[in-house]
């Protein structure tokens, strides 16, 4: 068992583009669920729209990388409008059902062979890196220390992702401490009371859905930035994983979703390396290495349940501010 390799992989996962992508999506869910109380179960769709919007506009329409990102973000704004206008009048549970269905519709649209020319259907999309990499200010070479050794492109993606993540967290922090954020939190508590005070609740909920959706789309883009867009990623369980990261850190916090994503990926990577290694040296004789990969998802589920039952406010949340235990 190569413990060093396992620890190195785990350390590397802490700033992986996937982790940053999750953190952005979790920030979006913090906006939706933690602050506004919108039970959006379709975050995977926002991420898919971001990633596909980015890849398709570069591959099919020859956009530069920033143009592709704008298309991805714009797409998520339009999706938030289409999703929000009919559904935001619904209360909690119904919104969850509709968003989960909408997310499946989006995923299947990207998966269908009808649009194979643009979406690559089941194969997904890749080979859209040239424009983004051409913008890389870091000279060629390998940099870093310990587990964090990457080439220039690897660093460029990570630094870009972290800057976007920091920007998103800053935006969320500024809006949530403003009177706008006060209205948003009021809506989470009781939207009729807020309506009775003369606030346009529907408009605020739509704004929240759009802002969180943009974070989700950027998360999808960062997630797809180093490698490829794969339709198998944007399934419903992606939304649940992001929720796990969010609840782990604290739903109604700014840094909670980020820390939650880092821990989520750290533990995931550790388990996916450690469990097969343990099987191989005979510590876990009752399972195969393939089974051990499934076990880690079972552990995610168990962790989510324990979290909701015993620490619903997450790691950073205020004990009194249990946002989903009423």
């Amino acid at each position, binding site marked *: 068992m190569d413990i060093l390799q396992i620890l190195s992989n785990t350390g590397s996962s802490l700033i992986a583009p996937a982790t940053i992508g999750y953190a952005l999506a979790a920030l979006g869910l913090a906006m939706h669920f933690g602050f506004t109380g919108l039970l959006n179960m379709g975050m995977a769709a926002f991420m898919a729209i971001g990633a596909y919007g980015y890849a398709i506009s570069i591959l099919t329409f020859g956009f530069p990388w920033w143009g592709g990102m704008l298309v991805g973000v714009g797409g998520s704004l339009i999706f938030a409008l289409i999703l929000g206008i009919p559904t935001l009048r619904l209360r909690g549970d119904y919104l969850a059902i509709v968003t989960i269905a909408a997310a499946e519709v989006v995923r299947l649209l990207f998966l269908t062979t009808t649009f194979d020319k643009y979406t690559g259907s089941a194969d997904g999309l890749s080979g859209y890196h040239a424009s983004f990499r051409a913008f890389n200010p870091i000279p060629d070479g390998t940099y870093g220390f310990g587990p964090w050794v990457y080439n220039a492109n690897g660093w460029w993606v990570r630094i870009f992702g972290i800057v976007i993540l920091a920007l998103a967290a800053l935006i969320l922090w*500024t809006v949530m401490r403003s009177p706008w954020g006060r209205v948003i939190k009021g809506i989470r508590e009781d939207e009729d009371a807020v309506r009775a005070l003369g606030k346009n609740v529907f408009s605020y909920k739509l704004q929240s859905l759009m802002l969180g959706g943009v974070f989700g789309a950027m998360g999808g883009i960062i997630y797809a930035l180093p490698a490829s867009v794969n339709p198998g990623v944007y399934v419903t369980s992606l939304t649940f994983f992001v929720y796990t990261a969010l609840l782990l850190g604290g739903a109604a916090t700014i840094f909670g979703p980020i820390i939650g994503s880092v821990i989520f990926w750290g533990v995931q990577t550790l388990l996916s390396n450690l469990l097969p290694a343990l099987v191989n040296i005979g510590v876990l004789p009752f399972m195969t290495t393939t089974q051990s990969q499934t076990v880690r998802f079972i552990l995610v589920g168990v962790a989510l349940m324990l979290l909701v039952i015993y620490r619903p406010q997450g790691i950073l949340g205020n004990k009194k501010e249990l946002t989903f235990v009423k």
Partner: protein
Amino acid sequence: MSNKDTPAAPVQRAKTTGLHKGDIAPGVAKVDPIIIADGVRRTFGGLTAVDVDHIEIPRNAITALIGPNGAGKTTLFNLLTGFDKPDEGKWTFNGHALAGMGAHKVARLGQVRTFQLTKALGLLTVLENMKLGAKDQIGENIFRGMIPKLWRKQEAEIEARAEVLLKKFKLDAKSSDFAASLSGGQRKLLEMARALMSEPALVMLDEPMAGVNPALTESLLDHILDLKEEGMTVLFVEHDMHMVRHIADWVIVMAEGKVVAEGPPDQVMKNQAVIDAYLGSHQDVDLGIVTGRIEGELNTAAITMAAEVEELDSKIAKRKEPRK
């Protein structure tokens, strides 16, 4: 708040009179109405919850809306405030036609309401609850909200105003606590104070006294009377007839969705239609039998009434004691 220190009961403040024009009848015209509603009808399936031909709410007075359970009082409240849409009908507030207008727009015109089941925003602090009530906040726009410079000054003004109100409602010690930690009565106070943050012209209170202890009831009564003194109009739904007698200048009685009577409280209480529809549950009871002066059998209505009378007696006794 002038008579706060003296033990004077709220009863002793002068009632506003001369609110109506012509003979008193259901739907009578008012000298200066703030709300005029015509033909407002709301059905839930086969049930007609509200069917009001004409109703006028007098300005700068305290109007009570009473009636038996299921009379449509809260539904009428919901319709007037835009929380529910009627099948037909139109109504104006301060001259603005409100039919079809969303609840938040109605509130912005200066017609603010509270709820029968108190809606304190539990996971906001008491102060945040209050600040949320203020109208026309610059920082409530998402883009301007991102630049604190634009809204800091207004925020400070709002906070100062909130603190004055909190002090008045004796909630100032709680201002940084979560509203969820308040007691039921304090939440009622908070909801009312929050409503006042929007500087309304009309305050609509849905059962402000429900579940509030007698001492707090008295201070709430005082607050409601203060509202009138400050030039606001109050419309409230209440089952506590003592409160209605004490503070209402005008009483509107609803039954089965219709306005069956209205008038000054002392007159309305004697109205046969009101006795039949609301106070009249005891009319079939022979008081002589209850008190034992006449021989006869007590029916169930009489037994329940006797229990109620006892309860009322003890309540009245309790309230009178501290005033001596």
